[in-house]
């Protein structure tokens, strides 16, 4: 991997989870060139909680794919740690995905033939770090998201909220630079959505960086910062003024309710 040659802002003493500079993505179709991203720049300091919003066609999905290292930009740089991901080949990108990014998808995307613990372990499998300790860590993560008693269950035996919690546990297993959540609550009812958002808040309070793509204002209200895209450019990048924060008591109640619901 190439050393970083782009100047990372040093004024701030805070370490950066990701630095995005002038990111452009063009799709070359037969008759025209679609410019999905037209130069996007922002920093994500460690411990931040960013919501990326925007109408469809705003370049939201494209940015998500780039942030998730699933795609390469046409121009610009995306620095994860000390490496410019924009210049990497397919295998290197795969390694970055396995070791530095925690994915949470809208439709959970668990692997049907694997149990809860095995699903959590998948990113470790691809970095070749599977061993007895990692198994213990996966079990701890499953317990942390409240599924300690369902380690051997298959995804089909779990509710949507439970599946999403497995997915969150999976996103944490490789100790990523940031969690990338793509409409993570889109398939869930309001009660379960709260449950997941409470979990995100808890993780963020513990110091995890979260980047969340959503189109719901209520969900975005839980983030610390909102980036709004329009026509492939950043329209707004601002701190959330009146952020919805769960009090510790609320978190207690939510998790108690969730437990109760599961026992029924």
């Amino acid at each position: 991997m190439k050393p970083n040659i782009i100047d990372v802002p040093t004024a701030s003493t805070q370490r950066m989870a990701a630095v995005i500079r002038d990111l452009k993505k063009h799709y070359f179709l037969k008759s025209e060139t679609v410019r999905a991203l037209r130069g996007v720049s922002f920093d994500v300091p460690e411990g931040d909680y960013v919501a990326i919003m925007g109408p469809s066609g705003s370049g939201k999905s494209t940015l998500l794919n780039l942030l998730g290292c699933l795609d390469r930009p046409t121009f610009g740089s995306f620095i994860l740690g000390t490496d410019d991901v924009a210049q990497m080949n397919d295998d290197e990108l795969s390694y970055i995905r396995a070791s530095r990014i925690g994915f949470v998808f809208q439709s959970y995307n668990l692997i049907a033939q694997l149990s809860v613990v095995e699903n959590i372990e998948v990113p470790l499998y691809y970095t070749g770090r599977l061993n007895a300790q990692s198994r213990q860590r996966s079990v701890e993560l499953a317990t942390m998201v409240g599924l300690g008693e369902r380690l051997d269950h298959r995804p089909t035996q779990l509710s949507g909220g439970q599946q999403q919690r497995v997915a969150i546990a999976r996103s944490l297993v490789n100790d990523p630079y940031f969690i990338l959540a793509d409409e993570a609550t889109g398939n869930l009812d309001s009660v379960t959505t709260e449950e997941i958002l409470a979990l995100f808040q808890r993780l963020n309070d513990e110091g995890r960086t979260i980047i969340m793509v959503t189109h719901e204002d209520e969900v975005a209200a839980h983030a610390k910062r909102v980036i709004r895209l329009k026509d492939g450019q950043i329209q707004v990048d601002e701190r959330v003024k009146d952020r919805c924060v769960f009090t510790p008591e609320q978190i207690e109640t939510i998790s108690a309710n969730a437990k109760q619901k599961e026992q029924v």
Partner: protein
Amino acid sequence: MGFLRNLSAFFRPRTWKLGLKSLWLHPMRSALTVLGIFIGVASVIWLLAIGEGISKEAQRRIEDLGAENIIVRSIKPPDTSGGNFRQVDAFGVQRSEFEMIERTIPTVERVLPIREITQRFAYTGNPNIQPIDGRLVGCTDEYAEVTRLFVARGHFLQPIEIERAKSVCVIAANLSEKLFPSEDPLNKQIYLPEKKEYFRIIGVLHPRNATAAIGGSLAAQDFSNDIYIPITTMRQKMGDMEVKRTGGSFSAKSFELSQITIQVKSVDDVRRTAELVKATLMASNVNRQDIAVVVPYELLEQARMTRLMFMLFMGLIAAISLIVGGIGIMNIMLATVTERTREIGIRRALGGKRSDIVLQFLVETISLSVVGGIVGIIGGLFCSPTVYYAREAIKTFAPTMYASIPDDAKIMTPEIVPFSIPVAFCISVMVGVFFGLYPAYRAAQMDPIEALRHE
């Protein structure tokens, strides 16, 4: 071949566990795919075993003729003289030639004179017994040893009986059973109604399988209705002329000997001796048509070549069935890849490299083909009992059909060729790799973003 870089993952038990788990999600589909390989592998083993069984049988028949023997048969030339038997020409090997070979060729151990005529055999002591057509063989005491006849009861012809031209005989097992269903055949008299002669039975032989047919001169020899008498007795009582009356017409042939069997001292001398024998017999007439010299040793060599060709042919058929099985694997895996597009997307998003995806699908195809291979080998080992029971079943339920089966197939026992088992196994693994590569490659080339969006 990116997956080669991933060899360590290839040998991780988890990789295989995962592959088997995925296959287990569709037990029926996996079982059918395995069946394709099973049939391929089993047929490799079966066809080779059956081929081996048949060629061993052929070889045994030739060996029964004796590898160290040279056989000279008399052949009746096409009839040109019309029906007049006063002008019947003698043909075939003559006694003088027999003596010449015995005396002049040093590599010859011994020479047996044999004269065969067809006769009707009867037993007058039991009115219920119908006469049986069979072969009357005039021979010497050494005949039993050279042609590997074994006496079950009594004894074979003795030198003294040959010398004194006694009217004694040794009869084949089958004939003995038919003529003497309830009596002891020893010391009974066999009656030859055509010659009006009696022969006293001094021995009964063990049952014996037919030998190979040898090129034109000798049909597959059936020993089941033979009676052996001293050749001297035959000459005294029956002469050299054999007259057959069929309907109103006569046919006659005159020959001194119908066969001489020359036993050579060592197998290495067979070829040379055969040349000498031919030269001796053809001395007067190079284009002699009334004899045929058969060298079982050469037939044996031919049989070995035939066997090789046979194996090759069988192998080819088996290979085709393996390819069909492989295409089955490929078909299923292509369907699986499409069906699991989403899973592939997830795995790629979570950090799976292209080579990881290739590996995953290869592991599945190899698992399928290896399981098929192992089951196929087990199925292959059941070849002999299956053939045996199938034959028994045909014999009981469709006797007419059984009768029309060639003799070779009736007595043949499949013999599993040892090398066919590892070969079949290796081929099955290779089929898994070969036919799995393309689907695996297709899976790996998918765009993870597209794959994740796939429903």
